[in-house]
């Protein structure tokens, strides 16, 4: 019985999120576009996440290389290391881990910010002053998250590959030029384009869920905490669903 209620509330939430997304697209084409707020959010969202994304990506690069190297050494295939690491980072590990890190930071931040604005009646105040709070708060943040995540993923992938190179340089005395030659020889458009395209969807989902949870927050300060928390949980879950769909579609068009 309890499970049924949970399942029902999950689908109700999905429906409400879809309705929220529909409103986003409707408001997106409405004039005027809050361009200065959009730029401000791009700076906040991109800048606020860069250090975290950079450190996470660097460690991913180091760890993957450190853990994979002994196995490849056993088969005398350590020269394949740059190709293997680059494909796994560019195709899957980079986008997903960076998106999850981004969700932890940005979805919760947006959820808490809009949630506290809701409970302190700041959003109501915007509405009664005759301005459109959805346009100002939601459209700008969702767009900024959608556009900033792909940039962060590209930077993060580069940092992760650099981390991998450092391990290769220390353990196998591989030069920078040789390492990255091997990386670019191994990569194809079929690896880079779908991986980059799906990060737009990841960014959109993270921004949308963060805004949805915060904008519809109620029940006082407890509600703000719940909004921030559920924004991370819900957006992380959505990321995996989007990732599954993206891999499935990529498989059809690019034959992985």
């Amino acid at each position, binding site marked *: 019985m309890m499970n049924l209620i949970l399942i029902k509330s999950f689908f109700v939430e999905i429906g409400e999120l879809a309705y929220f997304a529909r409103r986003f697209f409707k408001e997106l084409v409405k004039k005027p576009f809050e361009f200065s707020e959009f730029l401000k959010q791009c700076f906040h969202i991109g800048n606020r996440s860069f250090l975290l994304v950079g450190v996470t990506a660097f460690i991913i690069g180091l760890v993957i290389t450190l853990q994979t190297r002994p196995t490849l050494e056993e088969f005398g295939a350590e020269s394949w290391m740059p190709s293997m690491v680059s494909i796994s980072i560019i195709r899957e590990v980079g986008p997903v881990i960076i998106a999850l890190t981004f969700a932890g930071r940005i979805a919760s931040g947006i959820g808490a*910010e809009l949630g506290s604005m809701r409970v302190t009646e700041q959003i109501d105040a915007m509405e009664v002053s005759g301005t459109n709070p959805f346009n100002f708060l939601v459209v700008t943040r969702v767009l900024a998250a959608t556009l900033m995540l792909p940039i962060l993923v590209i930077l993060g992938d580069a940092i992760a590959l650099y981390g991998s190179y450092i391990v290769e340089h220390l353990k196998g005395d591989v030069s920078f030029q040789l390492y990255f030659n091997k990386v670019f020889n191994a990569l194809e458009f079929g690896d880079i384009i779908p991986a980059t395209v799906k990060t737009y969807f990841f960014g959109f989902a993270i921004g949308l869920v963060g805004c949805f949870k915060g904008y519809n927050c109620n029940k006082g300060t407890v509600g703000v905490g719940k909004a921030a928390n559920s924004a991370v949980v819900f957006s992380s879950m959505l990321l995996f669903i989007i990732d599954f769909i993206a891999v499935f579609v990529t498989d059809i068009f690019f034959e992985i």
Partner: protein
Amino acid sequence: MTQSLNIKDSKTSLPIKSPILEIKDLKKSFGKNHVLNGFNLELFEGENVVIMGRSGSGKSVMIKCLVGLLEPDSGSIKVMGKDISTLNPFDLNALRTDIGFLFQGSALYDSMTVRENLEFPLRRHKRKFEQGTNTTDLVIEVLESVGLVDAIDLMPAELSGGMQRRVALARTLILKPKIILYDEPTSGLDPITAKEIIELMRRVQHQYKTSSLIITHDVDCARVVSERIILLIDGINYLEGNFEQLKHSKDEKVKAFFK
């Protein structure tokens, strides 16, 4: 059943013109909780009406229905002759510029400075003013009227509760509204600051010639700013009259407010 006391003898009454705000038979429920059960109100131009009632009696719900933040279940709300339920979002927003709303907790945008808070409503509605009107001049003008010009570049978190309330009033005034709705303007303030806010409200009412609808528990506030008081009990207007009439009422429910 609404009882209406004769208020013609009131020394404080202003010349009454036409109803600027009219609520008829307003009903609003949240599930099984019937908050408003047929509330009626007429606010005339230049008039200041206080709504008093216990917590949960529906005062804030009524005021939120007035600006379209909540949708009533039934009844009609006319602001300056326009039924707000029939307005499209564009016209509703245009009408909202004529209605100022002072929120209970000030509701200042905490990521913006005082200047940005005041400029925010002007972003979309500067056309309300003559061409060439300088935004900074408008901001300074309203900050002067609440005595806070020096706080122009401060963040809301750097202001005291009383100062926040004054900035919120300045933000309300910047679009030169015809009606100001005050939701508990003195709640959470110490008695001295509350008196300052009440005095400021009176000054603003005279300076900007606004009509005001004030929701309050504060008897002092009601005494100073109101020409007419409506007691909202059980979701209806229980009793109506001026301060002195209500204060000397024999009704036990009314007495409880003025003890």
